[in-house]
């Protein structure tokens, strides 16, 4: 298995380079020089700022030199300084990442812990009322705009019922809470964002798990398990679920970019100081250095997530974990 992981990590190097290339390409999308567009749209930008932008991206130098200096800076996460407040971009990103990671990790766990059992149950009780309701829920989950759901729930739980806060991650008197109180406070603040983030992913995973289970139940080895005289739950939970979960690991890995991307909307609506909201603010302000920084970090986070999903899969599937034999 270690050799597999090693090989995968080597394989990631070209992907990493590709990410740098594509982001480099994005910077140069703007017709004419990025400097012109940025400064001409934003009269507040001073002459020094314009010079700084040129220096940061070396826009006057030939393309390949630009790329290599970009690559060098990417490797150490040096994305220059923000146009909005002149702080280092890497610093701003670093202070925002933990919140986004927290919300997305909890959402991910929710998807796992609720989605999989729903899928298994639906498969075992095909065409029952539960299955039909679950299917409706899945379709609605796929079709609901996240931001709309956020507005509705915000209205319902935050304003009408006043059960949950709808802004920020801490209450005003946060500092006076006990440790337990602080945790509860943060939990109440991220409850809605987590739920909405998880909503579409939940629908997806339960659907895929259902299909995977149905597919596995038809396999020969399930028949063998029955023929051996194993009781129902052994057959299902030991053999069927374990096999059906394998492709789900890969799918869970694929849902990571969706979670990260969705944080833009969720954090903006709920005023959460995370990576997504930073991205949104920098896009509105045309803060190019921060935009590039967040875009690149977002891609790296996804890469990391995929690597972890890969490792998990290679561990779970003995066909990949072990080689050799007779």
């Amino acid at each position, binding site marked *: 298995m270690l050799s597999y992981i090693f090989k995968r990590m080597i394989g990631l190097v070209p992907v990493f380079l590709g990410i740098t290339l594509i982001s480099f390409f994005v910077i140069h999308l703007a017709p004419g020089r990025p400097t012109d567009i940025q400064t001409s749209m934003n009269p507040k930008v001073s002459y020094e700022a314009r010079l700084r932008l040129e220096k940061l991206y070396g826009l006057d130098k030939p393309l390949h030199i630009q790329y290599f200096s970009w690559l060098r800076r990417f490797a150490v996460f040096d994305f220059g300084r923000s146009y909005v407040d002149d702080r280092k971009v890497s610093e701003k990103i670093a202070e925002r990442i933990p919140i986004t990671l927290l919300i997305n990790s909890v959402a991910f766990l929710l998807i796992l812990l609720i989605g999989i059992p729903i899928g298994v149950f639906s498969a075992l009780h095909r065409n029952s009322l539960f299955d039909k309701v679950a299917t409706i829920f899945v379709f609605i989950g796929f079709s609901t705009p996240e931001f709309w759901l956020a507005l509705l729930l915000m209205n319902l739980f935050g304003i009408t019922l006043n059960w949950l806060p709808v802004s920020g991650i801490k209450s005003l008197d946060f500092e006076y809470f006990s440790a337990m109180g602080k945790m509860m406070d943060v939990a109440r603040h991220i409850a809605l964002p987590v739920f909405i983030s998880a909503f579409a992913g939940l629908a997806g995973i339960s659907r895929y798990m259902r299909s995977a289970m149905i597919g596995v139940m038809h*396999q*020969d*080895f399930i*028949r*063998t*398990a*029955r*023929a*051996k*005289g*194993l*009781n129902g739950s*052994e057959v299902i939970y030991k*053999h069927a679920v*374990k*096999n059906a979960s*394998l492709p789900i690991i890969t799918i869970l890995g694929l849902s990571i970019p969706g979670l990260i991307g969705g944080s833009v909307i969720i954090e903006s609506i709920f005023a959460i100081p995370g990576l997504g909201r930073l991205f949104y603010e920098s896009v509105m302000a045309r803060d190019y250095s921060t935009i590039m920084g967040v875009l690149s970090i977002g891609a790296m986070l996804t890469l990391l997530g995929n690597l972890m999903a890969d490792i998990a899969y290679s561990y*779970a*599937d*003995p*066909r990949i974990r*072990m*080689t*050799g*034999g*007779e």
Partner: protein
Amino acid sequence: MGNMVLEVRSLAVRINNHGISNKVLDGVAFEINKGEVFGLVGESGSGKTMTALSILKLLPRSAVIEAGDILFCGENVLTMAEDRLRRIRGGSIAMVFQEPSTSLDPVFTVGYQIKEAVHAHQDLSDMAAKELAIEFLERVHIPEPHRIYQCYPHQLSGGTKQRIMIAMALINKPELLILDEPTTALDVTIQAQILDLLEEIISEEKVSALFISHDLGIISRMCGRVGVMYQGRIVESGLKDLVLAHPKDPYTISLIESTKALSR
């Protein structure tokens, strides 16, 4: 009556698939006496496997048993309670399937899967179950049984996997062994080895067996009495030598002729 291990009476099974209904078994009847090997021969689609699966009620969801009785040592399998049936499956009646490569769960070691079969029917400690499993791996002539015990199915050859299936079937000392085309999916050289092994086991354990195959040569070698299946019915049955020498049914005749033609 006391000598019959299995008696199948007028078994009728229908398959319903997306509005299309097909009668796959139409009045199948035969008996297997204690200690004998009964062969069921016929082409693919004749209903041999369906018959075998019916005996343990392992038919797919889309299949419905419309009529008939299956008596195992006097008890009707089709009407017995679920947990009595579960104790019979793998315990008193064991089955070996056609495809060894897909019949074992890929995410568990083969040793674990054999141990599972033991725990389902015998009250042994984990250690004892493992020892029993290894003993039976030796019984089916698997070299290095301790190492193979830890292997996963994908690491093993088809022949080895089929030996493991046989070991798993025998480990709870069944009274009836159902063998559904046990060598069809294997290479020719391995086929011969597995047939040798089966012959040896059946005579040593004195277990009764239902041997299913489309190959008249194999049936002829392994069985005492045979039943010829065609389109869901047994068209002819009796002692092997009699049926082969003096076939009465036109299908049996053509089956024998085509076998001869192939071996010319």
